[in-house]
């Protein structure tokens, strides 16, 4: 036996089942948003989860530990996010949107607060929020990306300059120790001349101003010409009084 229904969409019973299913699906999305993305990673952008895993593996490598394969939860969150953003929401929204444009009832004839209407609205919110936010996100992430790369380039240059200043410090120390007959200063920095390969490198130009037991060291970046570092070297070869200029600060 079967019953016909007066509902315009579903047979009796099935309508409420599918409504319940839809509500459960939405609750599932909202709940799993908290479970799967506890750190508020946006569900609609699964590539953010993948990027997070790549960076986590980088941090593991930093500590000398092997990279780990993504866990089931991570894989599920990525797949679910992709299905939600690229399949479920656009399909429900676009097909219903088309139906309404082509053959749907006039706006004043629609029954308010139908469950199918709620699902359509929710899908629309997801699709439109993606559509509206993706351009600003693209622009903001490009800006952040170039800012991060510039900051990292400055820091790398600063690290390289500090490294090379330490090499100069070693050269100064041995000059201070060596007797004059071996080209040293015999317990003085006076007469010290910076070797050419240390004076100018790809990263910076260096100047050493030496007195008896004290040397001033100043580096000017080649890559970021406004940036500079200065330090003092005492008679024990210890560097101190570091000062960093401009973006090196």
């Amino acid at each position, binding site marked *: *036996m*079967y019953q016909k229904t007066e509902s315009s*969409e579903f*047979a009796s019973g*099935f309508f409420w089942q599918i409504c319940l299913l839809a509500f459960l699906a939405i609750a599932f999305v909202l709940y799993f948003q908290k479970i799967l993305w506890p750190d508020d990673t946006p569900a609609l*952008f699964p*590539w953010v989860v*993948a*990027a997070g*895993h*790549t*960076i986590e*593996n*980088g*941090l593991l*490598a*930093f500590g000398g530990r092997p990279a780990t*394969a*993504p866990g089931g939860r991570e*894989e599920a969150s*990525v797949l679910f996010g*992709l*299905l939600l953003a*690229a*399949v*479920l929401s*656009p*399909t*429900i929204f*676009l*097909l*219903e949107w*088309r139906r309404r*444009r*082509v053959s749907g009832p006039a706006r004043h004839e629609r029954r308010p607060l139908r469950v199918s209407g709620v699902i359509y609205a929710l899908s629309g919110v997801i699709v439109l929020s*993606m*559509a509206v936010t*993706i*351009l600003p*996100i*693209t622009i903001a*992430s*490009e800006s952040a990306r170039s800012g*991060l790369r510039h900051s*990292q380039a400055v820091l*790398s240059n600063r*690290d390289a300059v*500090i*490294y090379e200043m*330490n*090499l100069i410090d*070693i050269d100064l*120390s*041995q*000059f201070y*120790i*060596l*007797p004059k007959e*071996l*080209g040293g200063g015999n317990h003085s920095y006076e007469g010290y001349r910076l070797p050419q390969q240390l004076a100018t490198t790809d990263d910076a130009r260096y100047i050493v101003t030496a007195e008896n037991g004290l040397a001033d060291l100043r580096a000017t970046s080649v890559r970021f010409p406004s940036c500079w570092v200065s330090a003092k070297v005492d008679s024990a070869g210890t560097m101190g009084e570091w000062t960093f200029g401009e973006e090196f600060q």
Partner: protein
Amino acid sequence: MEKTTVTIEIKQEVSITLLWIAAGVAAVSLAFLLAPHSTELWPALNVAGIAAAIYLFALLLYVSRGPLPFRWRAIVGIVTIVVVPCTAFTWIRMEDQSRWQAAQVMKIRAVVGKGIRLYEMPRPLVKTLAAYHEQSPGRKESLGDVFRRLHKGATAGSNIYKPQREGDTMTMIVETLEPDRVALVSQETYVRGRDLGFENYNGQKGMVQEKFILTERGITHVSEN
């Protein structure tokens, strides 16, 4: 026994929607699950993303077919032209950026390791050089003897580095201990250097390695890899 049959009627558009969803979920999920899996999510996500893009393209074609008015078709087309390339661009850039950041972390690790070596390795050699040249002209110990006196038990091949903290695995190996030449070598065990084919002191390949050589005339630094 009486047979009962339950028939469920679904309007055509609902069944079409369900069919589209089923096809999309199947295509994207299969692409994701069948893609090569590695220690990263990107390979599977990229393959699934391509499947999702093809699905969306087909869906948009289906949605924007006639008799949808031209005005709405144009709107769908314009939104698609903006949203899809932006999404693809952000996706690709995010992958590139995350790989860059992971590589950057290792570069920072290499810089830290080299910095520690540059700080630690010359110290025993500078002390040796100072002690050597402070000797009275009448009694001259060789460089090797002075080094051995300052580092009791040091022989060629021994590690003279004293760990600074728990878990400090750095080593400082006496590579050469001759009367007029002392060489110290120190390497990373998991941080790659410039040349991946470089043979390290401990037999590994391609790791960062620094060397300092002490002679009567001073200290020479060689960044071997």
